[in-house]
């Protein structure tokens, strides 16, 4: 019940991020330093902790997740972490060293998908959207939610970074965006891309704070404003090589 305590802004704002965004945030850190907003970056590698840390006040903001992830987390923990700004969206893509299109998948082929909740859901949705499988109509389906698998595909869940590396072992790999970028998989080489639509809102990445009240926090607004700039867009383009699209 300490949801209002954040009106008091600490001198240094701790922002929890994933390592993939370090350069973007370091730049923002630099820019804001001039405006006397001190940011300390806390890097996470695991997707659950940054929200817990935010909830506990160990950090004040985090920027690593999309709306869906945040909502799921809030629901599970009965909390009210709030998105105070959008960052970008990175679509899921399918890659393959063996086939040119998902339609070329044959009976018994293997497809690797990320093993974390949202990415796995999106990956399965991508397959479903291409009519390869059918899944239950849930927000983030898992392999247990597959209702029809005509091709008898073997769907292998891997660490998200491993999907890109599994290309030699599988017939197709569904790779989430930041991994694809890091692995130098060119967006152009994808054999299928997640469609961006209204339905994509859950997958838009956001900057999250502890409560709705934080939306009004001047410092936080400054940070959001600093992110939602052309400069950031350029950096995103530079570092993500066009793989992500600014979403503000």
């Amino acid at each position, binding site marked *: 019940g300490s949801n209002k305590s954040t009106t008091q802004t600490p001198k240094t704002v701790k922002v929890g991020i994933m390592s993939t965004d370090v350069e973007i945030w370091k730049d923002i850190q630099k820019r804001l330093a001039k405006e006397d907003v001190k940011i300390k970056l806390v890097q996470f590698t695991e997707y*659950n902790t940054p929200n817990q840390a935010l909830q506990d006040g160990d950090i004040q903001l985090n920027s690593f997740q999309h709306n869906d992830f945040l909502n*799921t987390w809030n629901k599970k923990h009965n909390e009210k972490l709030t998105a105070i700004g959008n960052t970008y969206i990175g679509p899921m893509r399918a890659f393959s060293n063996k086939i040119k299109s998902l339609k070329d998948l044959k009976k018994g082929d293997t497809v690797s998908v990320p093993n974390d*909740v949202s990415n796995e859901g999106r990956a399965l949705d991508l397959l479903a959207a291409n009519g390869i499988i059918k899944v239950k109509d849930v927000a983030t389906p898992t392999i*247990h939610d597959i209702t029809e698998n005509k091709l008898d595909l073997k769907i292998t869940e891997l*660490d998200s*970074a491993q999907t890109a*590396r599994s290309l030699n*072992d599988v017939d197709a790999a569904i790779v989430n965006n930041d991994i694809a970028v890091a692995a130098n998989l060119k967006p152009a080489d994808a054999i299928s891309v997640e469609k961006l639509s209204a339905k994509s809102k859950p997958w838009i990445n956001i900057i999250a704070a502890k409560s709705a009240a934080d939306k009004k926090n001047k410092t936080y607004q400054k940070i959001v404003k600093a992110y939602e700039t052309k400069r950031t867009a350029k950096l995103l383009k530079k570092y993500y090589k066009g793989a992500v699209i600014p979403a503000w």
Partner: protein
Amino acid sequence: MNIIEKLFPNVIPIWTGDGGVTQSIGQTLYMTFFTALIAGVLGILIGIFLVLTDDHGLLANRPVYWILDKIVNIFRAIPFIILLAVLNPFTRLIVGTGIGPTAALVPLVLGTTPFFARQVQNALLTIDPGVIEAAEAMGLSPAAIVFRVYLREGLSELIRVGVLTIISVIGLTAMAGAVGGGGLGNLAIAVGYQRFQNDVTWVAMIFILILVFLIQFIGDLFAKRLHH
């Protein structure tokens, strides 16, 4: 049935099937067994050679000892999670695939062997040198001394460190999910923890506990039999 459904709402649907509980148990057993087997043999071999080639050993040989010792240290130094990741190309070379439980075996074996080898070395060093000397005086070859003295006199100690190592392996298999190895540990994390399905975590943990206790129990049984 109802109580079970209530207590384990998320477990029931994934009891069988790909990535389900039964499959995970199988994967954990598979990975643990083969890692124990291969790393066991390799670890004992390397451990023995470490003992034989050290300064007080039967085949004292500084350069060989130095190299073995350093190799063991290097592989022990690499955190398993990194091993799992960076070994991927090598794994593909050996077992033909980079994903799945069999692919997980390669980093598991490479991560376990040096650890076990060091333990074997420590275990064998506790054997009374007088006994080794007696065997030497009888004209036994180093190989015979290894089999008939070291491995025999050190057996109960070897079983103890073996149990310790197998339990460590079970811990390591939990990370094998990264390369699609599956297993109970992965189930607990990827499904139970990440999806907030606590019942899955608990069930996976209970099976791991049962496995660990079984191994410890069998180990203790053998060790006790050998204690005179």
